[in-house]
């Protein structure tokens, strides 16, 4: 269980002074700007153990997501982590799902075990190595999206999933993306930028073909559904809506956008405003923060309520 | 200190898994553990093993049981709950803790056909005079009923007490259907005044045994005994346990619900045009959970109606429970409300119920409910009429 890399990381973190972890800086300003003066550290790197037959992988937080996926692909597996660059620890701390979350699952459901360094400099383990586990309190979920403000993630065990045999992107103009979501059984993604709709289908060849036929019944402005290499390019900022709210998106507020239909995430060129929190929830969140980081030394300046820069 | 005299092995059979909870009508409407089979068994254990007093809440827990026995079909460990609660109710009745003297007199009257019929006529007259409040929950009773005459001697048709007084037409329909299938039936009439089920439910075991013994003596000719009331059929099938005699077991083995009898003999019924009705089947608990022959109702009805529709409440009790609807009125109504909601979701033209108690209880809740035999008889009759018209 003891891992030298993790212990060394803990020593580096120590027990005093403001400290922050730097990954690939792909979403560096999420949750607000880091307070100046915080010591910048890097989390340990490397895949510790991939167990394809268990569909789990133990990986250190500083490992690039691309490197992890490259390793898993050799075994026909993948994770729910987003394919937007960055490190494993960064992706978890930001809590961002892949744009194909409907097919790949949510990041918050993928974290089986987290080992982090506490504000006191101790290595703490939450969760467990198995794919199913309800032993004690769920610190894993608490840490996904916590922006490193409760502890600094050092190493995790993630659930992996098989890569489906066939994967297709389809695109159409002037169609109703909600109708597409409705008729399809379980698409990996339905994306909409205000004009065009992209649909990602995955599965066995015959099923993908059947879904494609189903989709052809959804009317388009003309030209029908055409196959394309990839989905749209995603604008940098994330907004969070209820899935039903995507029916009335305002391009003037969002700028250019790509909406993940059925999920509620909208990638937009404008950044979202801070969102208010009910006082009772805010008080509870503050108690949680205080319990884990009484001195406020972990990633000072980041605030979880602020989703994106 | 009261003991219930329950079998220790039967009591210890419950492992408290709770799978019975959702099948129990009283737990469903109260959410209260003391109103559940698991809770009632725990209370029986508390009384029996720990000497807990029969306090009011404990006694009420036992009294409010509808004895639908749905918990028995839900129980993977086959706890004989019906037996446990029957014995418990018997002790309560013996101790004078439940069943007030007027109610006791009412049960006693059931063994006397002329009294029951007189009461039926009095109630029917009272209804015409608006002297019987609708809140009593009775359907509109007939003022006069013609006698039933035997149609042959292949089978007995058990006619019972209240049903014969209130709903003799159902027996008539049953006899028509049996005749169409080639079976002549002898109505049991005053030969067997009552099966004793209502007495047994109330814990009045001695009168129940007396009535059962009378049936065993009267029906000893070895012919099949057909029953068109699910509650009576269930009782008669359990005469073996009740009386413990070979003769009782022999009779019990040739008791059949009328649909159970007809289902394997459907080829003997003529093919007719089905009634243009969407029919929801309401399974009487004693058909589904005790006799466990409720599928036969569907098999018999299906060719005679346009459409059969299932209720979505997984056979939950309607709250009729023999005399329960009259003794525990508020509970019975709360339970019925769930059933009515389920019926409303099924949007049927009519509800088919093979138990007169259920049918009455549902009817007083505003549901059009008929006996399955009535539907079959009507389909046969309409067919005959249209054929003769064509000629």
């Amino acid at each position, binding site marked *: 269980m003891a891992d030298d890399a993790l212990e060394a990381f803990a020593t580096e973190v120590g027990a005093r002074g403001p400290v922050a972890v730097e990954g690939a800086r792909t979403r560096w300003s999420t949750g607000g700007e880091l307070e100046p003066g915080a010591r910048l550290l890097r989390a340990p790197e490397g895949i510790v153990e991939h167990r*394809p037959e*268990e569909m789990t992988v133990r990986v250190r937080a500083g490992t690039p997501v691309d490197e992890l996926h490259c390793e898993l692909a050799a075994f026909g597996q993948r994770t729910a982590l987003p394919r937007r660059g960055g490190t494993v620890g960064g992706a978890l701390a930001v809590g961002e799902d892949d744009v194909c979350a409907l097919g790949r699952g*949510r990041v918050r*459901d993928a974290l089986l075990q987290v080992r982090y360094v*506490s504000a006191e400099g*101790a*290595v703490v383990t939450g969760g*467990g*190595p*198995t*794919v*199913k586990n*309800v*032993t*004690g309190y*769920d*610190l894993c*979920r*608490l840490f*996904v999206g*916590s922006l490193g403000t*409760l502890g600094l993630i050092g190493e995790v065990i993630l659930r992996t999933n*098989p890569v489906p045999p066939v994967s297709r992107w389809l695109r159409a103009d002037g169609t109703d993306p*909600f109708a597409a979501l409705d008729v399809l*059984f*379980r698409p990996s993604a339905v994306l909409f930028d205000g004009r065009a709709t992209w649909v990602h289908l995955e*599965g066995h060849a*015959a*099923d993908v073909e*059947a*879904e494609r036929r189903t989709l052809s019944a959804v009317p388009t402005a003309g030209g029908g559904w055409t196959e394309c290499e990839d989905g749209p390019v995603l604008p940098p900022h*994330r907004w969070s809506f209820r*899935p*039903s*709210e995507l029916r009335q998106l305002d391009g003037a507020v969002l700028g250019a956008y790509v909406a*993940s239909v059925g999920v509620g995430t909208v990638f937009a060129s404008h950044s979202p405003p801070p969102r208010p929190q009910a006082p*009772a*929830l805010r008080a*509870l969140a503050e*108690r949680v923060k205080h319990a*884990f980081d009484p001195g406020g030394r972990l990633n000072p300046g980041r605030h979880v309520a602020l989703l994106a820069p | 200190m009261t003991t219930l005299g329950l079998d220790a092995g039967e009591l210890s059979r419950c*492992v*408290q*898994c*709770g*799978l019975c*909870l*959702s099948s129990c009508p009283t737990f469903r409407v109260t*959410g209260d*553990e*003391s109103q559940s089979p*698991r809770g009632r068994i*725990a209370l029986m254990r508390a009384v029996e093993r720990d000497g807990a*007093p029969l*306090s009011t*809440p*404990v006694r009420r827990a036992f009294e409010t049981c509808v004895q639908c026995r749905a918990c028995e079909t839900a129980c*993977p460990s*086959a706890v004989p709950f019906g037996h446990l609660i029957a014995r418990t109710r018997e002790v309560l009745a013996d101790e004078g803790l439940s069943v007030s003297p007027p109610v006791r007199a009412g049960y006693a009257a059931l063994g006397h056909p002329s009294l029951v019929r007189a009461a039926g006529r009095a109630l029917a007259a009272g209804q015409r005079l608006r002297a019987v409040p609708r809140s009593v929950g009775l359907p509109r009773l007939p003022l006069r009923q013609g006698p039933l005459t035997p149609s042959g001697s292949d089978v007995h048709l058990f006619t019972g007490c209240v049903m014969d007084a209130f709903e003799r037409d159902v027996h008539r329909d049953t006899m028509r259907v049996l005749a169409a299938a080639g079976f002549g039936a002898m109505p049991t009439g005053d030969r067997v005044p009552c099966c004793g089920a209502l007495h047994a439910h109330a814990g009045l075991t001695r009168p129940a045994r007396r009535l059962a013994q009378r049936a065993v003596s009267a029906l000893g000719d070895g012919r099949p005994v057909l029953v068109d009331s699910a509650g009576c059929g269930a009782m008669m099938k359990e005469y073996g346990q009740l009386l413990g005699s070979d003769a009782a077991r022999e009779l019990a083995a040739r008791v059949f619900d009328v649909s159970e009898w007809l289902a394997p003999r459907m080829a003997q019924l003529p093919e007719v045009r089905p009634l243009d009705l969407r029919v929801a089947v309401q399974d009487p608990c004693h058909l589904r959970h005790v006799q466990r022959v409720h599928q036969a109702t569907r098999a018999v009805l299906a060719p005679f109606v346009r459409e059969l529709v299932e209720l*979505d409440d997984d056979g939950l009790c309607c709250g009729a429970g023999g005399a329960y609807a009259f003794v525990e009125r508020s509970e019975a109504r709360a339970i019925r409300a769930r059933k009515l909601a389920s019926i409303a979701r099924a949007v049927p033209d009519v509800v088919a119920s093979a138990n007169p108690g259920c049918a009455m209880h549902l009817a007083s809740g505003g549901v059009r409910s008929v006996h399955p035999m009535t539907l079959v008889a009507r389909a046969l009759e309409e067919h005959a009429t249209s054929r003769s018209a064509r000629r």
Partner: protein
Amino acid sequence: MASRATRRARPQPAAPDPIVAALVGVLGRDRVRDDAAERSLLAHDASVFSGGAAGPVCFPTSTEEVQAVVRTAVAHGRAVVPRGAGTGLAGGAIPLGRPVVVVTTKMNRILDVDLDDRVAWVEPGVVNLDLTTYLRPLGYHFAPDPSSQQACTIGGNVANNSGGPHCLAYGVTGQHVLALDVVLPDGELVRLGGLDAEPPAYDLRGAFIGGEGTLGIATLIAVRITKNPLRVRTLLLAFDTIEDAATTVGSVIAAGIVPAAMEVMDRRITAAVESFVHAGYPLDAGAVLLVEVDGPEEGTAVDAERVVEIGRANGATTVRVAATEEERALLWKGRKTAFGAVAKIAPSYYLQDTVVPRSALPGVLQSVYEIAERHDLMVVNVFHAGDGNLHPLLLFDSREHGAIERVHAAGREIVEVSLAAGGVLSGEHGIGVEKRDYMPLQFSDVDLDHQNRLRRAFDPACRANPGKVLPSGHSCADIQALERVPAGLWG
């Protein structure tokens, strides 16, 4: 008064609980129970643990009433224990030290279903299966399907982060809850999570789920609803040995197939359930493996075929495919009522719940049988093999002298063997009172301290379901009000 009381044959009743009058003021007389026999009923759940003691029992019908009850308890310095249907198997709902028991079964309305957001808003007392039945005409279901789903409540599922056979593919309750209204242990109301993709704040919804009533009481729950599969194929494979069945499970997963469910039952339990459901389970097999694949037509056909191939390669003696929905329903009824059916073998059972890596299943199973034999106990195995979630049932008769002690010892050894194989203490039943003292076997003091920090953030005063989850030595475990320590709960 006094003279009349002494003339009674019955022992004099204890002095009335001072909080009862206040609770009656909140809920009315009908929905507060203080009768000793009624309270005794709520001292149990579906586990083997006894020795709990309930204080007044409350039946609130709204969030506001739950808040009022909790605030009354706070004012009287009393703890609060929430309870749903009482089908838990780890003693999580067993009241310790006469707390106020808040029963949620009267809060059982399905308030809204929104297909656009794919969400259902339910009260905590809604029965799990009732929601799925309600959703069926709409083509949806609620995915978590614990074996007790016909009786257990969704509030209980949230408290235990319940699983079930189909969580192999669909995930446990935590993956299907979007938002929660929670009455915190001080009576304050918060909404955790939300319907939007990424609600602001820490994922306190995720942290709350599985909190076993120690973090507050959920009074309104928004659950994700799942589209029904296009096609379901259910396979029954019979094997000579349980090890062959377990090896097959590992091989299926290793082949990159994630069925909706993979369940194993050994010979004894198969016989017990078959006599109840008459589903046609083979009685001569050493073990049966129930595999369900669901999804689109082609994918399920391919997967089913490969499962059969893998099964045959690992010694499957017979393979049966459920031909009709009725056949499928019967097979599942057998599986889901298995625990209850064991009374046909012995009057009491102790059900363990550990998870091990799937590849470790055959070895750990072997150990489980050896452990039982060493302690002169009968064990049957029926479990969620697909995710390595073992459920050995130790069968005994609690009236037999020394049986409880042997069961306790064997249970602990099973836990130790599971942990040594790289497993965890609980896969879906939770910690409750059953495993709180095993927690140090899996977690260090520092780990437990951090779990305790989360708990104290929700419940600084240790009022919510004290004595559960965290072992003695951590706060909220050793509350003075506890009349009995959990060791005395056995039996």
